């Protein structure tokens, strides 16, 4: 009994309720004629698609910069890379790699500027990050119209200028990473091995990084900035590095997302993309100032599982699509829970 209690204490009620809810959905699924194998496959694909963007939350949380609501900044860098790669007509794995190689320097630049900004506004990072994200997306809306991209598969047909809202990567690098060593089992089960390997590689690199000297220093800055300063760590530099890292992962994350999804979504597409990533890592057990790779993995599975299962299962039961509402309530409820809880612990 004591062990169960301490487990509940450690995991927190909302997480357990969400896990039980997901379990319940999987149990009900066969009875309402939803295929379990297809559902599991969908969940896995979505897990791979979103994993890297959730991983992007880790460095900033660890360095005490809070949840990165400014993820759209990284996503924009990724989009620039992706669009340029399509413009150059690169295909297959080469196209994806080119997209990443173009996106990463841009992301480093954005992240550096964004990090400098966040260093000047310590204590108010999250709200400012949100609005930096929003305004950069709105600014890029103007740029997508004006940037001189020419490829006929990307610009508006009649005008010949201005990028389209959604651009298909079919014929360029659709599923270029996912299909590496992937396999099909039966008619409904598809396993994107390549995407998982890629995600695992990034997780491993992050794990290694967190154990290097810089990574440890970064964690120290997050847990106790005064102690970090006293032991000779350059607090602002560590924070900037964490922001750059987070932005770069956001850029890589969106490219992984796009190659699996098959479309590049421009304009208001990246607008709300930070919220699912934030919610996922919180569901996985992270708090506003502590996050691990395990949190990323668990959180992404749980959150994406719910997103996959609710539309199909709930629709079959009540004959109406409630997935959108469930998504909004679960993700924002989770963020709200994390924001209110952490302070309770802090304030004596």
């Amino acid at each position, binding site marked *: 009994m004591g062990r169960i209690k301490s487990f509940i204490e450690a995991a927190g009620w909302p997480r357990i309720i969400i896990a039980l809810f997901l379990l319940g959905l999987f149990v009900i699924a066969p009875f309402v004629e939803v295929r379990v194998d297809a559902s599991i496959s969908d969940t896995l694909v979505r897990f791979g698609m979103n994993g890297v963007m959730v991983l992007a939350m880790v460095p900033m949380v660890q360095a005490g910069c809070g949840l990165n609501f400014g993820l759209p900044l990284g996503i924009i860098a990724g989009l620039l890379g992706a669009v340029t790669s399509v413009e150059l007509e690169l295909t297959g794995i080469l196209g994806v790699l080119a997209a990443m190689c173009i996106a990463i320097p841009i992301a480093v630049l954005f992240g550096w500027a964004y990090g400098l900004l966040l260093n000047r506004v310590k204590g*108010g990072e999250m709200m400012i990050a949100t609005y930096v994200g929003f305004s950069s997306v709105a600014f890029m809306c103007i740029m997508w*119209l004006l940037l001189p991209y020419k490829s006929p598969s990307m610009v508006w047909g009649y005008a010949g200028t201005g990028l389209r809202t959604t651009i298909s990567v079919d014929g360029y690098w659709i599923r270029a990473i996912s299909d590496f060593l992937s396999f099909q089992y039966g008619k409904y089960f598809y396993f994107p091995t390549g995407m998982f390997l890629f995600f695992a590689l990034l997780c491993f690199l992050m794990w290694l990084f967190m154990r290097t000297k810089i990574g440890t220093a970064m964690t120290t800055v997050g847990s106790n900035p005064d102690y970090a300063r006293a032991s000779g760590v350059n607090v602002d530099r560590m924070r900037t590095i964490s922001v750059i890292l987070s932005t770069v992962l956001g850029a890589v994350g969106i490219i992984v997302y796009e190659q699996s999804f098959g479309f590049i979504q421009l304009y208001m597409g990246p607008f709300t993309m930070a*919220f699912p990533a934030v919610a996922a890592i919180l569901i996985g057990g992270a708090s506003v100032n502590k996050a691990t790779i395990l949190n990323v993995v668990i959180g992404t599975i749980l959150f994406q599982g719910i997103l996959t299962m609710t539309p199909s299962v709930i629709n079959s039961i009540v004959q109406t699509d409630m997935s959108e509402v469930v998504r909004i309530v679960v993700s924002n409820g989770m963020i*709200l829970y994390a*924001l209110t809880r952490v302070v309770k612990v802090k*304030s004596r």
Partner: protein
Amino acid sequence: MKYSLREQISHFLVQYAVPIIFVLLSIVAIPLSRFSTEYLVQEMVARLARDSFLVLSLLIPIMAGMGLNFGMVLGAMAGEIGLIFITDWNVMGVQGMLLAMIISTPLAILLGWMCGAILNKAKGREMVTSFILGFFMNGVYQLVVLYGFGNIIPIKNPALVLSRGFGIRNVTNLAGIRHCLDDLFSFNIMGITIPAATFLLIGAFCLFITWFSRTKLGQDMRAVGQDQDVAGSTGIPVERTRIISIVISTVLACYGQIIFLQNIGTMNTYNSHEQAGMFAIASLLVGGASVSRATIPNVFLGVILFHLMFVVSPMAGKYLIGEAQLGEFFRVFISYGVIAIALVLYSWRRHKERERARRSLRGAE
């Protein structure tokens, strides 16, 4: 301490950076848009009447040191629920509006109390918490309005309900109360219609705020806004005061949304409240308010400047680059960018002050 002229000028520039940028932008954009002065003045008068009340509802939480109340969308939702009911019952005109206010007041009080209680658990990060709370309650609102209405809560009017038999349609027509307050008595000056009744209401509300800030409760709020610990040790119930400030703000936002929608005449059932929050906050900041200080003149200046940009920018974009879409995006960028800049300036200043305080403690320099 005496400040040199240069320090005073730089202080003025930092304090009013956002309004100055807006005035400059307007000076450039107005001639480009080719609108007539008469049209612009009429638009501004109409928008002042429509939006001021919503923006004014933000003042009290700022007084209590809780920053910009992004939770005002909760009040807007309450107001919308009231409006759905009166449309269903077919109550028209000013009576309809009053009834909507009466129905939504208890709901707004409840939501405001809840919001205040949650924000008390998240001291120091009120803004981001109220912001997320707005999103969260938007989900709950959708749950109630899209699935509850017509199912659990009876709705008789078939024109309101989706064809599947429950849930309110995306657009609710408020023809019954359209312009009812604006037209109660209005007059013309040089071809410009002035909705006097609405302005009287707004004026009364401004008086209320000035009166309120001088009452015991208002002074308590100021004290809490200055320093919670000090206020607490002088015997002010800090948490209760904070909750009251949010409740008042939520109720006023609810009335503000009803006034706003009676002017518009149609309601985007699932979007109106989100826009209300964003535009109100952006307007207030454009008027030169900061997260910790906002006055009534800030509100009116802000509404005029923000909406001037709002009206002018699509046309200016069209004539300048030949694409109206561009101006459209530009104004979205402006409204988010303004909030970002204002938040950054505020945090930056606070950060600097803290650093200075620490330095003086150290005794160096």
